[in-house]
């Protein structure tokens, strides 16, 4: 009898632990929707573009969002602007030097000031942002939207179980801080770069 009670307690504890464990969301989107958008003011019109090479994982527990961890990676060569010549300059040695710096990353170190209402959590993500080989600590206001049991619906296979996590945020960086033409042509190309992310991570359930 004691063994049975013990086994039940162990099973219950394991089940509780499993339930409490954060879920790992993969941000390599099967539908190719994930993009980072960037924009900087310039002569005539802003230089605006996107980067579609988003990968990375975020471990998120809707019951404990403050414990969120993760890393988002952008392939530098996936940055695209509408003008082909500008694109060459952007990825070239004088700007991002994509060949030598193939990744732009954000490593989350802490999620502070979390507030949850329904399935939406707002917080300030503190982390290490690496651009052109330079790493700096930054803070990004983020919004995390947890969409339980929406994975299958999104890929048009409702029988496939799984959750989604939508991550949204916007922040500014100074290009000079990351060695991108520091102090040069600031009258032509703004030193501030606005970066906007709206990406979704998937956590299919076996």
């Amino acid at each position, binding site marked *: 009898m004691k063994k049975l009670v013990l086994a039940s307690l162990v099973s219950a504890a394991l089940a509780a632990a499993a339930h409490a464990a954060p879920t790992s969301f993969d941000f390599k989107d099967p*539908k190719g*929707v*994930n*993009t980072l*958008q960037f924009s900087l003011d310039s002569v*005539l*019109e802003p230089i*605006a573009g*996107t980067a579609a090479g988003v990968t990375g994982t975020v471990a998120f527990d809707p019951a404990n969002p403050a414990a969120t961890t993760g890393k988002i990676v952008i392939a530098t060569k996936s940055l*695209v602007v*509408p*003008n*082909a010549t*500008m694109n060459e300059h952007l990825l070239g040695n004088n700007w991002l030097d994509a060949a030598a710096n193939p990744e732009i990353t954000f490593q989350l170190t802490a999620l502070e000031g979390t507030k949850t209402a329904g399935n939406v959590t707002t917080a300030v993500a503190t982390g290490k942002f690496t651009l052109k080989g330079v790493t700096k600590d930054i803070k990004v206001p983020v919004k995390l*939207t947890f*969409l339980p049991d*929406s994975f299958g*619906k*999104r890929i048009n296979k409702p029988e496939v179980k799984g959750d*989604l996590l*939508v991550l949204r945020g916007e922040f500014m960086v100074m290009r000079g801080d990351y060695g991108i033409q520091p102090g040069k042509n600031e009258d032509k190309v703004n030193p501030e770069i606005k970066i906007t992310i*709206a*990406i*979704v991570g998937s956590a299919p359930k076996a």
Partner: protein
Amino acid sequence: MIPAPRLLKFAGLALVGATLGFWAAKGAHLGWSQNRVPVAKTDEITGIVFTTYEERFVPGVEFLGTGLILGAVCLGIAFFLRQKKPTASNS
């Protein structure tokens, strides 16, 4: 045979007209030329607005400027050559 000044004048006018017409027909874009055009789309389930690109050329102001300047240069040379042409009273 068509005289050179007249030929240049027609070429200049044609270049100006063709440049303006092509630029206007492609949307009269007042920014830089685009080799691909961003198109915003929305993912239904997540509400994420994302960008895809259509591979087509949209001429911008540098295209317009180059065409108009080249046309103006042709017209200017035509005008210059016509001025230099000897008149009957001079001969």
